[in-house]
């Protein structure tokens, strides 16, 4: 049991409340951003960027990943990110379908 708790740092409620506040602020920024007239590519980039920051905040603090051993993080996260990135191999075909579309 000793090793199981070796990597754990006692985190106060302050960190959780602060994370929650940041998540709400980022959400508010996203909703505001949605009403700006931006090119869709830029909009997608900004919204996804903010969402990745939010996901990282949730994983690091709420899901405690920051306080786990590094081994766990490097086993889980890069493989997941790689698989998700590989899914995007289909996108060029979506753009091609648009060019082929009957107008």
């Amino acid at each position, binding site marked *: 049991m000793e090793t199981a708790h070796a990597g754990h740092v006692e985190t106060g409620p302050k960190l959780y409340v602060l994370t929650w506040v940041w998540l709400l602020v980022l959400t508010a920024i*996203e909703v505001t951003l949605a009403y700006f007239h931006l090119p869709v590519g830029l909009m997608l980039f900004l919204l996804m960027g903010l969402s990745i920051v939010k996901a990282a905040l*949730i994983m690091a603090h709420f899901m405690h990943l920051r306080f786990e*051993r590094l*081994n*766990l993080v490097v086993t*889980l996260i890069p493989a997941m990110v790689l698989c*998700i990135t590989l899914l995007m191999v*289909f996108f060029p075909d*979506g753009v091609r379908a648009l060019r082929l579309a009957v107008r």
Partner: protein
Amino acid sequence: MAEKAERLRFVEWGGGVSPFAVGSKKLGMWLFIVSDSLTFSGLLVGYSYVRIANERWPMPFEFWPTIVMATVMTFCLLSSSLTMALAVRASSLGDRAGVVRYIALTMLGGILFVLLHAKEWAGLIAEGVRLWENPWGVPLFGASFFTLTGLHMLHVISGVIYLGVIALGVSRGRFTHEDVEISGLYWHFVDLVWMFIFPLVYLLSVKMP
């Protein structure tokens, strides 16, 4: 640094100890989360694909009520994540009553989310949105919307039931701290997935004033 690298090579991966320093149940939940996030990624990428391939994708979401309600739903889910984190903390301090109280608040957040979401679904269905057709054109809109948000809602409902079982067990003196922590991991993951569905499905389909 070199010392740390040595330790990594010979102690953590050398056999005889867990290289991850987490229990098998917790590692299992993490592996489930990785596979489930790939399921959601597959759906989100599929949705993005059909969206890219359709020039006239409907953008029907009015500021009121849809976007405001979806933001309130996001708030419910984020706040329930906070109370879940506090429940896990109470559990680590051995405060069983605190765990039950915070998990009850978390479940309340989840139930509010589901109720608001169900109301929104009912509204869209009343407007004539179906899996195969909708009043705004591209038929795939309904299919992608209901599949994505439906699978997520299923996760929220399962999560509420899961947390109910855990809270009941904790109040009767069953379950360890690890069990509470694992249920927390699941709940935070459900929250995390919504952080991608909300901008991709709602915010990119707002009706510009």
